[in-house]
Every structure is written in structure tokens, then in C-alpha cells.
């Protein structure tokens, strides 16, 4: 798990001087970021591209807990949650898979991963990790 956090920070380090322009590079697939923006705007969860970036960074800077899901036959994932309001999920390459508003009554990342038999580790988000994103945000 620590390896993924290192990869996440390395990926952000690579774009930190131009984060608003290069935020799409942090996503696993080309074009995925734009599609996620469109979906979130359609759902009324964000105002625009910059708002999505701010909400994503805010979630990482203020994350209370993480859920790490280890898989035998697919990518491992880690989900950072902020006060049951927003979540950001990375894959084992430290790339963003999604960043989304948590909706009451919707299936949680934890419930979903248990259902597909992932090995789960839950914990409090590392303070250094949070501080990194707090600095990045400012």
C-alpha cells in the first residue's frame, strides 16, 4: 500500500507546477478525465473542470480514511474518503480511476470490493500524505 502512495505522490510531483493544465495526465486512460468531468457536470456535482480538480485535491488533503482493495486477477485499488462526502480512487499504478461525490444510499467502494472478494485493508489516512496535498492545494 505504501508503494501505491509513493507512486501517487510521484505522479503528482510530475505535474505539480502546472497541475490545472496537466491534471488529465494523472488519470489512467487518455480522455478519461474529460469524460468524468462531463459526467459530474451532468449530475450537477461540479461546476466545471477547475471545480473538479479543487474537489479532488480537497478530498485528498482532508481524507479521514482509506480503503485498500487487493485483487488477485485485476488492479489493486485504493480509495480515499473525505467525511462520507467525496472519494478519490487510484489504481496500483498510482493513477486516478475516478473522483466522485458520495451519494447517500449508493453502493460504497467497500461494499463493492467485498462482493468481488477483494482482500481489504482499512485505515486512517497518513498525515504526511494529507499534508502533501494540503501544500499542493495552496
Amino acid at each position, binding site marked *: 500500500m505504501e508503494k501505491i502512495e509513493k507512486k501517487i505522490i510521484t505522479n503528482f510531483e510530475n505535474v505539480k507546477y502546472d497541475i490545472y493544465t496537466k491534471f488529465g495526465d494523472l488519470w489512467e486512460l487518455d480522455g*478519461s478525465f474529460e469524460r*468524468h468531468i462531463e*459526467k459530474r457536470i451532468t*449530475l450537477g456535482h461540479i461546476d466545471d473542470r477547475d471545480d473538479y480538480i479543487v474537489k479532488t485535491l480537497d478530498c485528498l488533503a482532508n481524507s479521514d480514511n482509506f480503503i485498500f482493495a487487493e485483487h488477485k486477477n485485476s*488492479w489493486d485499488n485504493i480509495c480515499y474518503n473525505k467525511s462520507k462526502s467525496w472519494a478519490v480512487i487510484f489504481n496500483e499504478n498510482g493513477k486516478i*480511476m*475516478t473522483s466522485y461525490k458520495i451519494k447517500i*444510499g449508493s*453502493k460504497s467502494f467497500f461494499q463493492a470490493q467485498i462482493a*468481488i472478494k477483494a482482500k481489504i485493508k482499512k485505515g486512517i489516512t497518513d498525515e504526511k500524505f494529507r499534508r502533501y496535498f494540503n501544500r499542493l492545494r495552496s
Partner: protein
Amino acid sequence: MKNLEDILTDYEVDIKFWSSDFGEGFLFLGTREQLIPYEADERVQELDKLALKVIEKDKSKGSDKLFLNELKHIILNAHYHHKVA
């Protein structure tokens, strides 16, 4: 608890924006699971047809593949029961 209209909107949005390894297979599945009590509704059945087309084209390699397999199972199961009924 969300009403049917809200869940249908979520389902429609999930279908419209899906692409392989979108990272939200569990949200897509979760939305459809919320519609299980409403499977007799024609709007659910129409959206299910679109969802099946999306699943057919999907080339996800990560856990999304597993979630979409489960989604397909739920849809086909619902359609089987409605045809039998």
C-alpha cells in the same frame, strides 16, 4: 431513500458516459441494484437494453470487468423473469 426518477436519471447517466475501465463499475452496478424493485417499469427495461449494448462493447481489464459482469447478470435475470411472467 431516492425516488425512482432520480435513480433512472443516474442509470441513464451511468450508461451514457461509460467507457472501458471508467473506474465506476461499482457505481454503475449500485445504481442498477437500486432499480431491482422497479424492474417491471418499462423505462427500466428500455435502459437495460442500452446498458447491455454498453456491456457488450466493454473491454475493461480491471475490476470494472467484474462489476459489469455482475450488472449483466442482474439485467438478464430481470428480463428472464419478466418474459416468464
